[in-house]
């Protein structure tokens, strides 16, 4: 469950058990919706012939064809410096590139 103590504090309901109960109920509903959605999402991916994996380096989740033997993480976690015509240098994001396994 999400950090209930934090939520109680930011909603200023420390002394309101009824509203604390409402927060607990909302969180439980959200978590169930996420779990149910996750299950449906994985079923949909399987039906589409897709697999997924979490990047061991950056934690981003990627989806790829189940037959793809060498998928790589595409999260924009890297930085590449580029030099342009006027001589100035700029940083642009680049893919994580870590090999993934389904």
């Amino acid at each position: 469950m999400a950090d209930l103590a934090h939520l109680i504090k930011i909603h200023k309901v420390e002394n309101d058990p009824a509203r604390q109960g409402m927060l607990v109920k909302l969180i439980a509903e959200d978590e169930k919706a996420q779990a149910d959605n996750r299950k449906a999402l994985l079923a949909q991916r399987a039906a589409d012939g897709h697999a997924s994996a979490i990047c061991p380096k950056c934690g981003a989740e990627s989806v790829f064809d189940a037959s793809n033997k060498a998928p790589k993480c595409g999260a924009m976690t890297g930085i590449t410096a580029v030099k342009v015509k006027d001589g100035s240098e700029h940083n642009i994001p680049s893919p994580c590139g870590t090999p993934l396994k389904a």
Partner: protein
Amino acid sequence: MAVTTTDATLKDGNNATLLQAVHTNPAGDVVPAFSSDAPGVACYSVSILFTLGVATPTEVVVMQGSATKTIRLRKISVQGWSTTAGVMKWKLSRRTAAGTLGSAVLTAIPTQGKNDSGTVASPTMTVSTVGTANYTTVGTLGSINDSGVVGFNLAAQINNTLPWTPTANTPEAFVLRGTSDWLTLDGGADAGGDAVPAGGVALITIHWVEDAS
């Protein structure tokens, strides 16, 4: 005299008292207080500086609907930056099938979060960028909902840096229902054939709400 906000007392069908916030303007007119805030609605956003790694991309961003929530996309914005000036045509498309990925890899944008720190932090919609390669076959096209041109330029020329915003804070949101409902942001090959300008980076921002309707 400034505008003041007070509560007007209303009665419902059972003669129970309700309070309605009203504004009183300097002329003494009393008008209902309109609120653009939506308390209790789960609002999410995601934003990425995405280096367009495929030379002439088809689908660039894939938004997949949720099995448990209805998704309403309130804002989509795409802006360009590049080391050599150029333009790209873009489309917002609805897809009714996932398509064949081939060597393409969809990576969920990991920075998505909730606008309100209220309850839990994770949305159910998945927003992914497409990397490594284009889809072998893009998803079945259901409709083209919007199209636009995005200028890519390093120089601060305002006419080249205007974002394309297929939807911007509108109540007429694009809706996604179910995990077999997709909206995609398409560039290049799938939208008229523009290659990515050299060093092209797309600045993409998406806002949406999720509810159980």
